[in-house]
Every structure is written in C-alpha cells, then in structure tokens.
C-alpha cells in the first residue's frame, strides 16, 4: 500500500511558522529594549532637570529666610542672584537639548549656513570655555584660517559638547587638545583628552540617542550630546567619529567640507 506522505509540506509550514515566531520574538525584544531605554532616559532627564530646580528653589527660600530675619548680607544677595542666573542657564541648556532631539525626530532641524572661518570660531569657543573647564587647560593648535559653509552656532555647539565631555571624563588636571587641520577637501577639528576613555563595550553605541558611555557612574548629562552633535555634523555633509588612542583617553574628530570658494570667502 502506498502511503502519501505530506510531511515535507507540513515541515515547510512549521518551519515558516517557527521563523515568524522567532521574528516576532526578536521584534518584541527590540521594542522592549527601546521602551527600557526611553524609560531610563526619562528618569535621567527628570534627574537632570530637577537638580537645578532644587538649587533654584532652595536658593530663593534661603535668601527669603535670611532677609526676613534681617541677616542677609549684600554679598549673600549677589551670590544668590548669580546662582539663580547660572541655574536658569543650566536649565535652559538642558531644555535646548530636549528641543533639539524633538526637532531631529520630526525632521525639523534647520541650519543657518554662512561662510565661516572655522579656526576663528573654534578659537573663540576655546577662550570662552577655558574658565568653565575647571582645572583642565586647552591646548589649541590650528592654521591661520580655514573656511567652511556651516551654521556657526551649531558647529560651536558641537565643539562645546566635545570640550565639556573631555573635561567631564578627565580626572585631575590634564590638558585637552583642540586641533584644527586641513585634510583634503575637509577641515578636521579634533578634541583629544587623556581621561577615562570609552569602555570597549560602549564604543558601538556611543553615538546612539540617550546613550551614556559611563552610565553606571553618573557623570551628569542626559546622553544626548554626541547623538545631536553627529546629527549636526551629518546635516552639514560632514562626519563625527570617535578614536581610541592606545595611550588612553578619547579623541573625537569632526570633519566638515571646506568651502569650495575659499578666495571669495577670505575676501
């Protein structure tokens, strides 16, 4: 008697089903991972926003209390007002970061491009940032000028972010190197530190949204800076890459296309 075997057909169907189930499982795991990441981000963002709010609240209440007791000295008021201004600026910067993320997601991120001397721009950022970098000094090395068609405020934002990160992840008074060089048709702006460096396991996800390379140890910040910086670089037709020097620390290189009409620009 001949037996009709339909097993291969059944087998194919089962295999297909298994593949679909496996695919669904993977999609679910990815969705869960994204949700966890979002929850973690919300928690970090709340922490970052509430801390300056706490300082503002306590500062105002402390001044109020001292004034009502008649014990507030003029220098207390001056210092308190400075704290209020600085903490308001800090809140403003955090909110700007959140707005950038929202604009990037909605593809509403606009650049206001103009011909810019990148060397002069980086030099100004360096001077403005140095007092804010605590015990770290910045070694600035650049040619006389290099022109690019960029949004100067956005390029400044990237350099500020890279210098701030370099200082944040460097313990003790170590120098930070800010170098600018011409590389073919691009200008390369590199920020090198001699700090903690990027752990091996964090390198692949370094530029991801909400990512913090040293998240287990809270160093402040919302993990948005590098993501936003790379998006800005790419919106200019440039790149932002991390390098991991063998002698420690981290190096970030921002490459932007040089202006195609340097003579006109220089004039």
């Amino acid at each position: 008697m001949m037996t009709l075997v339909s097993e291969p057909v059944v087998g194919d169907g089962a295999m297909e089903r298994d593949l679909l189930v496996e695919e669904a499982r993977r999609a679910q795991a990815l969705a869960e991972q994204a949700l966890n990441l979002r929850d973690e981000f919300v928690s970090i963002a709340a922490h970052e926003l509430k801390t300056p709010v706490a300082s503002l609240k306590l500062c105002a209440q402390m001044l109020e209390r001292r004034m009502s007791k008649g014990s507030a000295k003029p220098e207390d008021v001056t210092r308190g007002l400075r704290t209020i201004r600085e903490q308001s600026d800090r809140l403003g910067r955090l909110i700007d970061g959140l707005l950038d993320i929202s604009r990037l997601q909605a593809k509403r991120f606009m650049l206001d491009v103009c011909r810019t001397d990148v060397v002069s721009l980086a030099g100004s950022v360096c001077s403005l940032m140095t007092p804010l970098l605590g015990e770290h000094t910045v070694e600035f090395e650049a040619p006389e000028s290099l022109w690019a068609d960029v949004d100067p405020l956005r390029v400044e934002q990237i350099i500020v972010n890279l210098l701030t990160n370099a200082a944040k992840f460097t313990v003790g008074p170590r120098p930070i190197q800010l170098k600018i060089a011409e590389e073919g048709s691009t200008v390369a702006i590199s920020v090198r530190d001699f700090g903690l460096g990027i752990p091996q396991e964090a390198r692949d996800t370094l530029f991801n949204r909400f990512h913090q390379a040293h998240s287990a140890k809270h160093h402040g910040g919302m993990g948005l800076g590098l993501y936003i910086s790379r998006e800005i670089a790419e919106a200019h037709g440039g790149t932002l890459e991390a390098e991991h020097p063998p002698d420690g620390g981290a190096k970030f290189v921002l490459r932007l296309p040089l202006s195609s009409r340097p003579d006109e620009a220089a004039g």
Partner: protein
Amino acid sequence: MTSIDPILVIDDDEVLRSMIVEILTDEGYPVIGAADGAQGLKVALGSVLTLILLDMRMPTMNGWEFVKAYREQSGRPVPIVVCTAASNASLWAEEVQADGFLAKPFGLEELLTTVHHFVSGAGVSAV
C-alpha cells in the same frame, strides 16, 4: 547647649550641596559636605555623625554602593536620608533600607523638618 555630631551631606552637584550645607549651617547644625560616595565614605567612617543626607546618582561611588560599604564597615551606622531627583525616590529609599527620603526639588521647610526629625530622634537639638 547640647552638642551635635555633624550631619554629612553627600551630593555630586556642587551648587545644591553648598546650598544644603549653608541652610543647615544657618540653623546651627554642624555640617560636612562630600562630593561623591567615596569621599562621603571616608568622612563617614572617620567621624561620629548624627545623620547622612545621600544623593543616589553620583560618579565614583553611587548611593547604593555607599550604603552597602558604609553599613558593612561602620560599627555604628547613623540614619540615612536619601535625597534624589528620581521619580521613584521612595522606591530607591526602600531599596537601600534608608530611614527617610527627600524628593528633589524639595523645599527648605521639608529639608529642615526632616533633619529636625532625625536630629531630635537622636536626642539632641540644634543650638
């Protein structure tokens, strides 16, 4: 006048830490500030304290690590009040079996009431 052992304030945010230290000092409490868990642990193990106000998210040594090390190494642990900006402040306090919590942004009155509660519980009062 009753002498009070210091209150240790551990917070990596320099502005907030100084503010808490100043407010408590204004009220007559002796206060020591520390910038992270490691620095705080050094102080806590080397001093007699009344209370520890502890931030949780900190570099070098976070709040969880601090509590674990402090309780393991201290012969006479004092109450710990968790001060955190996390939305689940009470949960974090429970996690480390803290004696209380202050959810940031807490106000001056909340801070003083909490500190007073633990200081008076220790049988002393501010001068």
